């Protein structure tokens, strides 16, 4: 492509706190609507916001984890607009002075080289409720509002327009997620909405100093969707530019079903939010010492943890890198080790089969019903030769999907390994008598022929035979 792609991302992250940003309502998901609400987060007349100090600490942690310059003096602004999910008619945010600015994080660029992506601002703001549209009826249906999420603590993280491809955008998000998870700021589950991403994208001729006209992409529910919608819009914009037309400023929505972007609104509808300092909240004042303390108290990040995995557990660097890419997965790995101290074996299974199932199901390690205890149970059965490695894969899959204990799966499915010599001897005798030619080949010095015979035995036992024992018995019988 003859154009240079310019992407900037605006990410909203739900912070992990006990209560909402400005009231004492619990900050956690409940299905029943409007349960976690009070006069403050419902915007009742006369109710006033009180800043949750824990949320401020979380935001501070996020800002320092993203290498931001922290404003020792900042404050909250009101962003005024009408929408039924916004109880006060304004959102409390930080418009004029963000808590953090001028930060960065490192990713790998398209060539695999380290690249620093600028972070323009990190600011605190409150979440909105949810509007549920109910279709049908002559009146065109009704709308219902759930304010459980209203007033929830968010931080908005705005990158500089430093990203040059959809792949870089995805890697930026992965890195951001990892940092937020490691810092304990958020669980960053995009599917659940605790990480939300909007993208700005434009194209320009390489070497141009000014930016092209950008579009804004919304409604992407996974990293994959971000990548795909960016690719989709980059192609669309390139086609427009190729034909000599101009891209128009607009907001597009990613349609997951149709796998394409759809225009939401044009520029004319861009709002004037009439931001001004919220007179009901005191300014946020921090000392340099508090900021420094937050920096020092940052928990171990991915790179450090990977280094520790290599040193402490003797894992290959590759394993350490894969395991620590997600804090959940690294936690999962270490939980397994507590009861089964064979790091490389655990690593193989966590990185391999377990991660594959997670990816298929679109889950994080801590969301899987297959717990570290289950993994340990599985690994112990292999270790004790109760099941073979091959059978173990089958057990893991069944346990992962059904949520049953691995041992129960083995019992129910009759997957116990056959180590009973007499039982195996009968099968081996049959295989030898049914395959005289192969037996002859082996006797004639063709070592490979033995493998075929072992395979026949395994087939006959549906993989449950102890392969080592089969080997031994076969050699003994043929040679006798």
């Amino acid at each position: 492509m003859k154009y240079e792609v310019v992407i900037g991302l605006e990410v909203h992250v739900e912070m992990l706190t006990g209560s909402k940003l400005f009231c004492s309502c619990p900050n956690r998901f409940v299905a029943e609507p409007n349960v976690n609400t009070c006069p403050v987060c419902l915007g009742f007349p006369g109710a006033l916001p009180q800043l949750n100090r824990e949320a401020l600490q979380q935001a501070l942690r996020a800002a320092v984890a993203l290498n931001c310059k922290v404003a020792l003096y900042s404050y909250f602004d009101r962003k005024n607009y009408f929408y039924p999910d916004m109880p006060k008619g304004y959102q409390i945010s930080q418009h004029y002075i963000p808590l953090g600015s001028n930060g960065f994080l490192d990713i790998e660029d398209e060539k695999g080289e380290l690249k620093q992506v600028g972070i323009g601002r990190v600011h605190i703001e409150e979440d909105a409720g949810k509007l549920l549209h109910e279709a049908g009826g002559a009146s065109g249906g009704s709308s219902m509002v759930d304010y459980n999420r209203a007033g929830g603590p968010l931080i908005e993280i705005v990158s500089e327009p430093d990203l040059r491809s959809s792949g870089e955008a995805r890697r930026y998000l992965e890195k951001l997620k990892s940092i937020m998870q490691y810092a304990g700021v958020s669980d960053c589950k995009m599917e659940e909405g605790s990480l939300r991403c909007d993208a700005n994208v434009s194209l320009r001729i390489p070497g141009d100093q000014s930016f092209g006209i950008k579009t804004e992409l919304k409604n992407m529910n996974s990293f994959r969707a971000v990548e795909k919608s960016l690719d989709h819009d980059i192609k669309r914009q390139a086609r427009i530019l190729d034909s000599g037309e101009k891209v128009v400023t607009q907001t597009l929505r990613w349609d997951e079903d149709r796998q394409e972007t759809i225009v939401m609104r044009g520029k004319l509808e861009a709002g004037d939010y009439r931001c001004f300092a919220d007179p009901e909240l005191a300014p946020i004042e921090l000392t340099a010492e508090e900021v420094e303390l937050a920096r020092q108290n940052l928990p171990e990040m991915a790179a450090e943890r990977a280094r520790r995995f290599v040193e402490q557990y003797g894992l290959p660097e590759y394993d350490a890198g894969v395991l620590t890419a997600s804090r959940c997965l690294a936690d999962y790995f270490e939980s397994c080790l507590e009861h089964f101290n064979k790091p490389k074996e655990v690593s193989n299974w966590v990185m391999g089969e377990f991660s594959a199932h997670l990816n298929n199901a679109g889950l994080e390690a801590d969301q899987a019903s297959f717990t570290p205890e289950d993994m340990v149970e599985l690994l112990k059965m292999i270790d004790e030769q109760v099941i073979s490695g091959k059978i173990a894969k089958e057990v893991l899959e069944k346990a992962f999907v059904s949520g049953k204990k691995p041992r129960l799966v083995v019992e129910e499915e009759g997957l116990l390994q056959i180590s009973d010599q007499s039982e195996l001897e009968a099968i081996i005798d049959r295989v030898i008598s049914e395959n005289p030619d192969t037996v002859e080949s082996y006797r004639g010095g063709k070592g490979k022929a033995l493998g075929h015979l072992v395979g026949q035995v395994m087939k006959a036992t549906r993989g449950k035979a102890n392969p080592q024992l089969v080997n031994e018995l076969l050699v003994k019988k043929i040679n006798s």
Partner: protein
Amino acid sequence: MRLYEMTAAELSRRLQSREVSSAEVVRSFLERIDEVDPYLRAFITRTPDLALKSAGEIDSRRMRGETLHPLAGVPIAVKDNISTLALRTTCASRILENYIPPFDATVVAALKKAGMPILGKTNLDEFAMGSSTENSAFFPTRNPWDPGRVPGGSSGGSVVAVATGMAPLALGSDTGGSIRQPASLCGVTGLRPTYGRVSRYGLVAFASSLDQIGTVSTTAFDGALLMNLIAGYDPLDSTSLPEEVPDYRAGLEPGLDKLRVGLIRYGRVDGFDPEVTEAVNKAASMLEEHGAKVGEVSLPLTDYGLSAYYLIAPSEASSNLGRYDGVRYGFCADGDSIEAMFSRTRGEGFGAEVKRRIMIGTYALSAGYYDAYYLKAMKVRTLIRRDYEKAFKKFDLLLGAASPTPAFKLGEKTEDPLQMYLSDVCNITDSLAGMPSLAVPGGFHSSGLPLGLQLTARPMQEKLLLKTGRFFEEQRAEYPLRPSLDFLEERGGDYEI
């Protein structure tokens, strides 16, 4: 002397000595309300049953020998923009006509805890936006000294209730003079405390950086009694001040030695009644005679105060009133779409003055105007505060008028918003600077209407204000002032609305 004519301090004394019961006291005020309120209309909602019930509870607690708050059993009226649990709080607006708060304002919780029976909720200009109580969506309140005139506003209902013995005390709110201006027009004492001294939690916001709950009483000492109850830090209000609360009653005995008083020289203000200036000068001489040192002070930037105020207050109001969309509470109009529902709800629910201020504020905050209007006004506000800080280096107290004129006629200024805004000209700079400010009666106009003085002190110096207020009371033969209300007999039903 009948019970309803007594000060809160006197009622407190008689209740504590068990000369009277709270039920008797409350009944006396309720009878007075029945007698007077149909003509003057101070109350939007009366709560006789609730008041008698809490009076009864206090009486039996007292019978059991419990230690009670000095104000226990003394009834009070509450401005109808202060939230009361399970009791309609309308802000004198159609949009909240049937709104019942699910919580008590912090100050109301304090009243209840102390055992003060609430007589009802008083009338105001819609959302406290106005200077005459004519902007109430329900009915205007009348001035007891001349029922053809306004009581001032926006706390007109609270002030009239106290002036006429319908309540011994009332809570008001003051954004740009809403306690002090009506207090002066009706001859009572009104205190706007330092911004942040009294919790705003539960006060329905008009302009949050200016709104302050304060007291309406017939004497400075009664104001001190009520301040003891409502002042203090509230974790629910982020702008409330953590400083310790003094006993406002203690040390109010006069003694003005070495008090340095700055007599405010106003810049050019149209429509300043010369008799008002005369009354202020007379007050200054009185202070001087009793040992105070009086000098002149000018606050040059106060000339810009009115303009700054009428940009900042509407800007905040335009945002504060965004929540009235008909979705969660209050009046809700039908509409084919969400947008239609919003605009019809607000179009039908708000009165003209509220809409005017929302529009001014929306304009002042809009992109392209924000710097020239809102931001400029905020800078002026900072400079005004500096003017005050400078003045308070030389003086302990500033003395001026609480209103440029005595009470004006009903309808006189309703057609001219600017003239109406000018009636707050004496009050708004104190508000912008966040200083505590007290209106006390300052004699009478030749027309027989009361005039008010305004005293302003450094932050947290409410006590000095009350002490000086008490000094002025003691200079008068008769106190508290009571309007004769002879029109009740003379003209009877003429004034019934």
